[in-house]
């Protein structure tokens, strides 16, 4: 068994344990109100973090580049109530264009 297979097996088991812990342990249990309120807010923090980290993150470095232009354009498009697909396409196009001219 080579190194890649070993890593594959360890990560398969470990990742599945992390993924399934919530659904399997919490199951159908109805959460207490306090906890519910927290869980309802979690996606806001999560989505904001995913958006910003995938914009300015590069490994352990903060890198400001054309991706930020894409995010700003996405924000403007959303503000103008553009449909989801249009937002994605505009953001990608703005980023590609920025790279082209800089």
């Amino acid at each position: 068994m080579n190194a890649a297979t070993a890593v594959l097996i360890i990560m398969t088991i470990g990742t599945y344990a992390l993924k399934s812990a919530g659904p399997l342990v919490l199951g159908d249990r109805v959460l207490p109100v306090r906890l519910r309120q927290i869980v309802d807010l979690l996606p806001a923090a999560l989505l904001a973090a995913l958006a910003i980290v995938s914009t300015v993150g590069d490994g352990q470095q903060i890198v400001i580049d054309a991706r930020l232009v894409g995010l700003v354009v996405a924000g403007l498009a959303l503000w103008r109530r553009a449909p989801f697909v249009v937002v994605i396409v505009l953001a990608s196009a703005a980023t590609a264009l920025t790279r082209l001219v800089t």
Partner: protein
Amino acid sequence: MTLAEAADDATRRRAIRRQAASIVAAVAPFGIVFGAAAATAGLDLWQAVGFSSLVFGGSSQFAAVEILGDGGSIASAAIAGLLLNVRSLAFGVIMAEALAGPWWKRATMSQLMIDESTAVGAAQSDLHWRRYGYLVAGIGVFVVWNLTTIVGFVVFSDAGNLITDLGLDAAGPAAFLALLWPRLAIPAQRRTAIAGALIAVMLIPFTAPGVPILASMLGVAVTRAWPPTERSAEGLAS
């Protein structure tokens, strides 16, 4: 169910499918790059597809394969990969209620627990649609991710420029922002989003990749502590 309700359901289903389709399309080039990276790192095709189907966690796959390619140890590759997936633990807590059912169903659906499926699922306002969004995005990404892994492995040896040339690395951030957008109209949700984003960005230089996303959840604690007058912290729960 009245006619109006049925029409409303069809509209929502379409809207969710459109969100999922955009995200799935945005994932495809990254699948190609992963396949190419796996080939470059000296993996076999079955190992590359094994990562994409059994592990099924984009960034963790890249990290592990990159470390393996650089000659890193089994432990360092596996630990780096698993650290990136610790956030699935939090995703599971967010999605658990929407994924209720017999244990074997919950066990199967858990495999789809990734950024994209959780993002689309969590963006919906009630449990039924959360589950639907999670499954549509999860299955869509799973299929496309594995197919593009094969294409990347077999066809492309260096697809890195494809993503930056087309600006596709901005597609993910834009999708996450679009899913967040409706929540920003609600004060408690907006404060949480800002706090989460700030925490994540500040941690980027100091922690392993993946940890900032996980730590952003602490943004909720900030929101709930300040200001204490806010009683409608339930946000989109209605």
